[in-house]
């Protein structure tokens, strides 16, 4: 607190060389190396996230060869080996019907990643073209497309997915359709906003002045510039799709037994969490880790796709 009267700053000590030592403060020169360390750490986290994600994808693809008990990933049960804790024989333990959890987690990655990839591809294939056309054409075309997306966005995405999955027959395909229906409007809206901005940019005008046709302008000038935020959002959303898929499975509306799926595994183990924690913990950790890695990758992509990154480094 100051009383409003001018105060005289104490004289700074002068070193033997005559230099005045600069005090360390949060905004002073000392904060620059700290910021540098934080930035380096964040840079490393992106690399680590990408590497872990690659390992998860490899684990999913190579599950039949990597899994210690491949039959447990599909149909086998072992009534005499139920709920064994983590150990040398079963690194992640076994579930209530004696299946090896490491095997189930690896096979579960296949289902979860397939659902994520399918939902995001489907949503992007529907949402991005609609958004680009709406944004570039403007006027009535934009109004019609955007009002349709508004209808879908009016429903909470998860509720819409649950309702649709309940109507459709429970299964992986149904989960993909149910989640996609609630997901594509976000991409349509995001792309429309980007395309609306981009169509007024100078390079679009220049392209028209150079005789480039509207179709080519949309495909080569508007789309590549509008799609960058969508690519980032896709990677950020992958974790969300896995969680939504897990939620559907948890509610009994997603993939069904004996399919290995992380959400389903968590649902089946919820009653055992206090006594046999590993049944829930490992598939839960797999969901957490994958969602986290996708988010980190999304952040990395956002940075990498910034055309001005070389100037801001």
């Amino acid at each position, binding site marked *: 607190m100051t009383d409003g009267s001018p105060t005289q700053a104490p004289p700074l000590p002068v070193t033997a060389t005559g230099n005045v030592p600069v005090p360390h403060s949060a905004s002073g020169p000392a904060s620059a190396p700290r910021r540098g360390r934080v930035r380096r750490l964040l840079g490393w986290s992106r690399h680590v996230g990408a590497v872990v994600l690659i390992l998860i994808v490899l684990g999913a693809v190579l599950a039949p060869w990597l899994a210690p008990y491949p039959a447990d990933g599909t149909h086998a049960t072992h009534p005499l080996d139920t709920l064994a804790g983590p150990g040398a024989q079963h690194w992640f333990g076994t579930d209530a019907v004696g299946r090896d959890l490491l095997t189930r987690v690896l096979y579960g990655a296949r289902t979860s990643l397939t659902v994520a990839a399918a939902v995001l591809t489907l949503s992007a294939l529907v949402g991005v073209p609609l958004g680009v056309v709406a944004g570039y054409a403007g006027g009535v075309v934009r109004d019609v497309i955007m009002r349709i997306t508004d209808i879908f966005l009016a429903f909470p995405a998860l509720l819409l997915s649950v309702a649709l999955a309940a109507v459709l027959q429970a299964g992986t395909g149904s989960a993909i359709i149910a989640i996609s229906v609630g997901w594509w409007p976000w991409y349509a809206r995001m792309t429309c906003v980007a395309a609306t901005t981009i169509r007024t940019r*100078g390079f679009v005008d220049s392209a028209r*002045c150079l*005789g*480039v046709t509207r179709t080519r302008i949309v495909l080569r*000038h508007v789309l*590549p510039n509008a799609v960058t935020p969508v690519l980032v959002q896709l990677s950020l959303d992958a974790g969300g799709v896995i969680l939504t898929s897990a939620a559907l499975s948890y509610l009994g509306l997603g993939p069904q037994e004996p399919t290995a799926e992380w959400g389903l595994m968590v649902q089946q183990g919820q009653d055992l969490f206090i006594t046999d924690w590993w049944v829930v913990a490992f598939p839960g950790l797999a969901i957490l880790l994958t969602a986290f890695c996708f988010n980190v990758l999304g952040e990395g992509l956002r940075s990498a796709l910034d*055309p001005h990154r*070389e100037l801001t480094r």
Partner: protein
Amino acid sequence: MRPHRDSDGDEDSGTAGIVSGRPRPDRSALTVTDLQVRVGDGDDARLLASLPHLDVRAGACVAIVGESGSGKSTTLHAMLGLTDGLRVSGRIMLGDTDVVSAPEKTLNTLRGARIALISQSPQSSLNPTMRLGTLIRRVLARHGIRGTEVRQRTDDALRDVMLDPDLLRRYPHQISGGQAQRFAIAMAVALRADVVLADEPTSALDVTVQAAVLQLLDRLRAEHGIALVLVSHDLAVVSRIADHIVVMRHGHVVESGPATDVLAAPSADYTGELLAAVPTLGE
């Protein structure tokens, strides 16, 4: 308002022709007759730009000057047939084609190849996701130029505008404003456009680069016989290369005549105000 002065020095009416200190080429590259650009319909219609007559010959430079909102950029866009949502009447003859009545498909073949625009924001006029080499290659391909001719025309154009071919590997944000403007000019040169419309081509550049770009435009029109239509609010810029000046205000032509006459003895008060606004050393 004092009456307009036409190309022959007669007092009239908004008719503009070309008188130049340079050799006067015979070929007419662009002719505008009774051009009117309006926005809105019926009683709500508002005139944005009106140009009774303009004849731009090959190798000549016509400058359209005026304050913001005077209709000069609208006139320029009308010459390109880019008047979405506006009502255009009159005739704009680019060779044998009337830009006002030509279908979009025809205009797309003319834009770039016959008439090109150099915008006031050089860097934002280049697609940030494309390397410069890709940009020029695709524009040339759009106009049917392929194979070795692409390389030949690109190299020639870059040499004309004094740019290093290494620049083709760069993205627009990796070059300076002056280089971006030179590259935009190079694209027009590579396409061998007859008419180049320059919309405030130096307003986003610093003074030294401004001079270089103006010199470049002046040299190219002399060497290649390009008809140059230069739009600017700055008479100092215009005075350096224009043969003929059209002064616009509130969508109308207030004065039109040979550059030497308009600059030395303006007939309209507004032109006098624009001339008075040109900063001079010591002020």
